[in-house]
């Protein structure tokens, strides 16, 4: 019923995936050729027109020559029908293209076209304003058929070496059919059988909100060495949030510290499932890290709110810890490129500024006062710069003006205090309402952020 949370590493699946990627690459190449987009070499602007026509002419000539040669060899049995035409073209194409492509890993070629692996997944826009216009350059059905056929012909060699199962797999998926892997259904070993059963039970009981049984299933599953917790952490976190909310953060921290892998994203290790939701790589931030940061930020603010901001020993430290943690994170590749992390970082500074400004002690004088107000301004400044960085990375949307207004209001607090220094009966009008607003806003934006990046 559900995907089993283990990394299946069988040679057969690997070979099947390779076939699929090769086919995708071939289709892509064919399509671009049919659209007149050249992808080998970079033609210079002046020469591109002539070059294109030259190659066109050259291939035409070559084709004619080949046809003539075939006729001399095969006599009258050789016909001029379309399919043979294709074959001939294959012969020409394979001459220079295949030699280099065969050497390379098809999977790598496929993923080279995408900046991040998660871009290979289709993004469904439900918002009418964000909808991208339909691509107008259509191709006819017969043309599509031809492209498909040619790319299939191109694969003949690797197809010949494929096993029977892989051939069935390939034929079905190339026709757009779903393929239920016999590897998983039929030859199921004792262990996998029970892992599957446990997974199904787990999902079932989570959907039924039977948290006791779901917890038990989860706890059993993670004790089986084969099971990869990175495929399950989301459910585990949800169960913990229901049963023991305190431990949820602890668990996420564990995930974050154990699987802080900055290994290179390799497409061929866990090819069964989309890697985005399971683990991180040098190119993208693992989801559990982002979740961990959001949840710890929310818990920090919540603690602050509960303690009323009087106790600045414990909760202040928690926030500072978080700031420090993020400042370390953003030094290294996957995190420094992720706009969401920058946004969280900015928010941390903003909250810190809010807290410090609201707790600003008017009775301070001289250098101590300067230090305190400088601290606030420092945090506000940091927050602004990080928001800018976040905006420059793109693909993360946030209410910019609202946040800016908030930051301004913090600044004003200090300045007001500066002006009416003598007035000691100043009450803080912003503080209490603001906080409620913040928290609801953070939670909104956190869910927004998850959607936008996934």
């Amino acid at each position, binding site marked *: *019923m559900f995907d089993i949370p283990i990394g299946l590493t069988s040679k057969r699946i690997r070979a099947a995936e390779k076939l699929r990627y090769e086919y995708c690459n071939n289709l892509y190449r064919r399509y671009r050729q049919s659209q007149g987009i050249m992808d080998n*070499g*970079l033609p210079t602007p002046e020469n591109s027109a002539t070059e294109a026509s030259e190659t066109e002419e050259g291939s035409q000539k070559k084709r004619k020559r080949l046809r003539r040669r075939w006729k001399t060899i095969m006599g009258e049995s050789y016909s001029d029908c379309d399919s043979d035409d294709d074959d001939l073209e294959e012969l020409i194409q394979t001459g220079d293209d295949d030699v280099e492509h065969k050497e390379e890993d098809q999977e790598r070629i496929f993923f080279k076209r995408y900046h991040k692996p998660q871009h290979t997944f289709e993004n469904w826009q439900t918002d009418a304003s964000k909808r991208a216009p339909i691509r107008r350059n259509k191709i006819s059905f017969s043309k599509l058929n031809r492209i498909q056929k040619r790319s299939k012909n191109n694969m003949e060699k690797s197809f010949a070496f494929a096993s029977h199962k892989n051939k069935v797999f390939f034929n079905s998926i190339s026709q757009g059919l779903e393929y239920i892997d016999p590897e998983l259904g039929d*030859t*199921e*070993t*004792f*262990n996998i*059988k*029970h892992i*599957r*059963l*446990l997974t*199904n*039970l787990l999902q*079932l*009981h989570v959907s039924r909100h*039977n948290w006791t*049984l779901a*917890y*038990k*299933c*989860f*706890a*059993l599953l*993670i*004790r*089986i*060495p*084969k099971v990869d*917790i990175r495929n399950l952490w989301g459910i*585990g976190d949800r169960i*913990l949030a229901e049963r023991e909310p305190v*431990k949820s953060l*602890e*668990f996420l921290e*564990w995930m974050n*510290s*154990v699987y*802080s*892998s*900055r*290994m290179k994203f390799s497409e061929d290790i866990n090819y069964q499932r989309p890697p985005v939701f399971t683990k991180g790589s040098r190119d993208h931030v693992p989801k559990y890290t982002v979740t961990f940061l959001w949840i710890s930020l929310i818990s920090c603010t919540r603690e602050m709110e509960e303690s009323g901001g009087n106790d600045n020993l414990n909760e202040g430290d928690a926030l500072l810890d978080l700031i420090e943690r993020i400042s370390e994170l953003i030094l290294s590749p996957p995190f420094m490129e992720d706009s969401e992390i920058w946004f969280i970082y900015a928010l941390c500074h903003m909250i810190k500024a809010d807290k410090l400004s609201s707790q600003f002690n008017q009775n301070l004088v001289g250098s101590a006062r300067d230090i305190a107000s400088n601290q606030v301004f420092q945090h506000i400044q940091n927050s602004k710069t990080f928001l800018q960085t976040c905006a420059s990375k793109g693909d993360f949307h946030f209410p910019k003006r609202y946040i800016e207004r908030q930051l301004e209001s913090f600044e004003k607090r200090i300045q007001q205090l500066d002006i009416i220094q003598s007035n000691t009966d100043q009450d803080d009008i912003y503080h209490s309402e603001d906080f409620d607003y913040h928290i609801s806003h953070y939670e909104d934006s956190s869910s927004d952020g998850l959607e936008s990046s996934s």
Partner: protein
Amino acid sequence: MSTYIKGPICGVANCPSRLWRIIDGRRTCQYGHVMDGDVEFNNEDDDIANSGVITRRLNLTTNATGSFQSSFNLSQSQHLHNSDRSKKVYGYEAHVLFLKAFQYILKRQVDFLVQHLDFPNEFENVVKIIWGMYLKLLSEQDDGNSNELESTVRGHFKLNSLASLAMMYMASVHMGLPVYIRDFIRWLSSAKVSFFNATELLPETWREKLPNYYLALLEGGKVPHDGQLFQKISQLCSMTDFTARLNCQLTYEPLIFKLVTHMVLPPEFYMFTLELIQTMDEDENFRLSGNYKRKFRKYYLWAELRVVAYFVLTVRWVLLCDLKSYPLPWIQAVMKFPRELESSEETKDVHAAYLSAQADTKDITEWDTTRTSAYLEWVEKRLLPMQKNEMNTKIDHKIAMRKLHKIFPMDSETYRLEPGNRSPSYIEELQEKYNYFHTSVENSCANPNSFQEDPNERILCIHKLEQTLIHQLSLEYGCSIEQLRVTIDHVENNCRMRSEEFD
């Protein structure tokens, strides 16, 4: 000399080269053409020494304990791991080691049966004799063949994880023990006897040395199905001279008794089945036969399956004929018990065994809480201990896992079950079941409406009962439903012919 870099095609005078190197700051192709307008300036003198040096970023990650580990270390450790793998032995040495490993596992399994399941001490000796017969056969084959053929013959040991089960079964048949294929399959698929983790039993050094192919042979992957175990038994019988030298007569009376009590049928069914077999069949048909072919279709030659077929037939015929003693409500009540009654260890094992053998488990959506928790309990008790500790886990990984397990403790780790909560024994459960069956039948038969019964409905009901019976039995015997049906049909025909002869 600097290495080549891949780049655009050179193209000067049709030069096909794509490989470039830098000579004196100018990009030069493989065949010596210099690229136009591509000059590299290098003003800094001290860089000369460094040209061509590949820098490498040291990726520091923290491990579970918080100390740093670098990617460099990781690649080194992989290197180490690779050298471990080369410990594997091949050829003659591997064959000998494989035989040793098989013998080791066999001994462990036999020890378990003797110690925990009350097998007689002589059982070990009998298994030894059978194993000796097999070894003798191997050595005879060796002597008969020249050296060139040696390796090919040795390659076909015909030993796998099922073979050890088959040997133990053969031994128990010879001794006339009331233990049958059904029991063996139940033990292994409820993870009582170590079968799926059999390679875990081996000493670490052997496991490292043994090639993966042999390890896979020793590790039972799936629960035996489609009569694999029967096949293996007949194969071993045909290879060794077991049938000629040892007792291969199956004592089927206890088997019938077990079948009857397992289905909670009244004792007269035992007598009926026994009588049917004794009048219709000869003892010779209940021997272990050495009849082995690749595509074997005479499933009725498998002695135990034959007995089972007789049992199913008896149930069918008795129910069809005797309307008075077994009215319709009686049939409907057979094999329907509330789960609360099935609480003994043995029955739980049986259910776990069903689950392991079943092809599809789509009915889990209908499981109630007690059934689910019973299953989870079984997983915790049986499946978890048999999970293998992966060989190459580092200490960091272990610590990390321990931390994780602390975050998600099992319920049993946090509080102990009360000792009073003992599950009943199998015999107690049986008594309860017979009791329940009796009362439920009496209740339903007391209802006067049910006495007018539709003959069609009756036949339908019997058919349904037989279906479930066959389904269960096929799971228990690790054979397909079709195989069981073929056997039943054959036995039925046989009986027809016999009865015609009598007439």
